[in-house]
């Protein structure tokens, strides 16, 4: 076992709060889990050296950090500063039907309910998910009552000052026929380490619109997860935008626990320098008549490294499943690396399932068309390559967010082009 994990375990032992039973469970599992090596399938292409060497530590003193402003976005801001919920940044009045509370502030009865739900969706196999169970500083519970459509998006930001370590946890429940949009992002000043996990319970006929912006770069180490449990006739639309850092890893689990669930996941990676981003996306079709559409597109330059593992598991009872996984990658330099692995496991017979992983080739016809309009070949290829990512930005349901992120991505892409 690594020193880092040993220290995490001993720190976990010292926390005595309402979550103690869950922390103990996690610690027990962690104690018997070997530290991943290159032979560990889930970490095959992603080294944990950055975690082992991290000097980041929990910072107790209160720091004032504000989330980066998103032009034209009016969101309910849920801000963690170095792992602690900054209550002052929460609005005084929340929209009707929405509640946000700190786990430790709940009454006994509410806590026992929260305890029962805690880590119920996130699978136990995620090592850092267990670390988060054991070390979560503040656990925030978000609830949308049945039938409420919350128009304002909820933005969950995790802010870290230089050298900080944080473990944030949010449990989101969407009641029946409700609607909520959630934006998750991490902003860090350097040499930081965070685990940020969110579990989503999406009740019958509810709709979740979800975004995760993993734009932290450099020496900011981040390992996190988004885990979705979807009940009958519910739906979700998720967009992940990631730059890389010394280590940036995200695990998502989309679980079709009810029938007629519709799930969409679009992920964009844009990596440069020595950056790494690793997405492990698992979809469990446990029930019939579900649909999943997954689009993952990576552009990698420099000596960066993209890892994508897309697993779709169609259980025996999940008849009439429609699942599609599409992964397209673009290597800008041959020193960059893309490791991609689609895994389809199908145990039902009446399903339609497709996957494709391709290196994006510039579409010759499109190139010709642009050239006939006077645009030179080099510029036309750039436009098409950017278009390849932009297509997924166009699919973001919230246009305020797409208009905000588009120029950010464009700038990063232009910088990649120059080299």
């Amino acid at each position, binding site marked *: 076992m690594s020193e880092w994990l040993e220290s995490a375990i001993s720190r976990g032992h010292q926390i005595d709060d309402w979550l103690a039973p869950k922390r103990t469970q996690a610690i027990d599992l962690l104690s018997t889990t070997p530290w991943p090596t290159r032979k560990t399938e889930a970490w095959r292409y992603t080294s944990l050296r950055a975690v082992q060497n991290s000097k980041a530590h929990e910072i107790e003193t209160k720091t004032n950090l504000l989330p980066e402003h998103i032009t034209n976005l009016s969101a309910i801001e849920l801000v963690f500063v170095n792992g602690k919920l900054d209550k002052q940044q929460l609005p005084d009045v929340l929209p009707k039907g929405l509640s946000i509370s700190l786990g430790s502030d709940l009454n006994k009865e509410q806590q026992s309910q929260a305890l029962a739900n805690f880590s119920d969706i996130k699978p136990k196999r995620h090592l850092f998910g267990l670390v988060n169970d054991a070390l979560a500083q503040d656990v925030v519970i978000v609830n949308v009552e049945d039938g409420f459509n919350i128009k304002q998006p909820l933005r969950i930001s995790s802010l870290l000052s230089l050298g900080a370590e944080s473990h944030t946890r949010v449990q989101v429940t969407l009641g029946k026929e409700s609607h909520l949009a959630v934006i998750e992002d991490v902003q860090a000043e350097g040499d930081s380490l965070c685990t940020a996990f969110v579990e989503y319970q999406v009740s019958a006929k509810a709709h979740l619109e979800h975004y995760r912006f993993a734009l932290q770069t450099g020496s900011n180490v981040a390992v996190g997860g988004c885990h979705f449990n979807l009940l009958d006739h519910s739906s979700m639309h998720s967009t992940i935008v990631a730059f890389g850092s010394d280590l940036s890893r995200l695990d998502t689990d989309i679980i079709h626990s009810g029938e007629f669930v519709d799930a969409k996941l679009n992920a964009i990676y844009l990596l440069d320098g020595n950056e790494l981003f690793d997405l492990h996306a698992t979809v469990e079709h446990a029930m019939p008549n579900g649909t999943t559409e997954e689009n993952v597109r990576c552009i990698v330059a420099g000596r960066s490294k993209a890892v994508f593992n897309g697993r779709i598991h169609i259980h025996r009872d999940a008849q009439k499943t429609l699942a599609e996984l599409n992964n397209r990658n673009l290597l800008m330099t041959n020193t960059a690396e893309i490791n991609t692995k689609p895994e389809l496991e199908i145990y039902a017979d009446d399903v339609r399932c497709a996957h494709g992983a391709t290196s994006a080739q510039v579409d010759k016809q499109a190139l010709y068309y642009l050239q*006939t309009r006077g*645009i030179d070949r080099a510029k036309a290829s750039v436009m098409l390559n950017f278009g390849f990512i932009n297509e997924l930005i166009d699919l973001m349901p919230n246009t305020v967010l797409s208009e905000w992120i588009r120029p950010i991505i464009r700038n990063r892409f232009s910088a990649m082009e120059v080299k």
Partner: protein
Amino acid sequence: MSNTKSLLTIKDLYAGIEEKQIIKGFNLDIKPGEVHAIMGPNGAGKSTMGYVLSGRDGYEVESGSVTFNGQNLLEMEIEERANAGLFLAFQYPVEIPGVSNLEFLKASVDAVRAANGEEAISSSELLKQAKAACKQVDLPLAFLKRGVNEGFSGGEKKRNELMQMLLLKPKLCILDETDSGLDIDALQLVAKGVNSQRSEDRSFIIVTHYQRLLDYIKPDFVHVLADGKIVKSGDASLALELESQGYAWLENGNVEAKIEG
């Protein structure tokens, strides 16, 4: 007229794709300001001619010459041809998801301006011009934000081609069946678009199957293209003749004899 310099001169052109000869001895001379209509049966090589002139990959010229505005067109890159003032409105415009129409128009207008030693257009000026062009071809403004031709209907794609023509102000516009798939109103719109652009220093090649369009756009010449070459040329009345007779007279191979006789 006769001493005016030609804008486009095609001499004895033989060209094709993948060893298949499609253009077989094509001759055409276009002076500035002229409108030429090209008609002819399916598969005659009309679109191929446009591809060859635009420089599309895979289209090989075996022999012959093409001079455009005094330059050897066949030696130029695709984009150089465009920047020199050649514009091809496609029979089947390409969809490019992810690249917005407006972004595309800006890149295109800027490329042509750069070739003429002009500065890039400001975004606000481009938007102004693009809005005016949209209005002229009756394309809702929302189409500027969409991906290039992405999910456009057949007719909308054609309007989008015309809009580009309006913005780029080329010297030679080749319209490949821009009238196909258009409703009657749209047909008049295409005609208006073309007529508004007619000028002493702009020429047109209009490929069409329908005499109808030529009621609105009076061509100076009408040519019949069959099996890779022009088999008959005349004035606007030839289109009317074709409308009533069809192309049956082309059959049996002995084309020249039939026309003369």
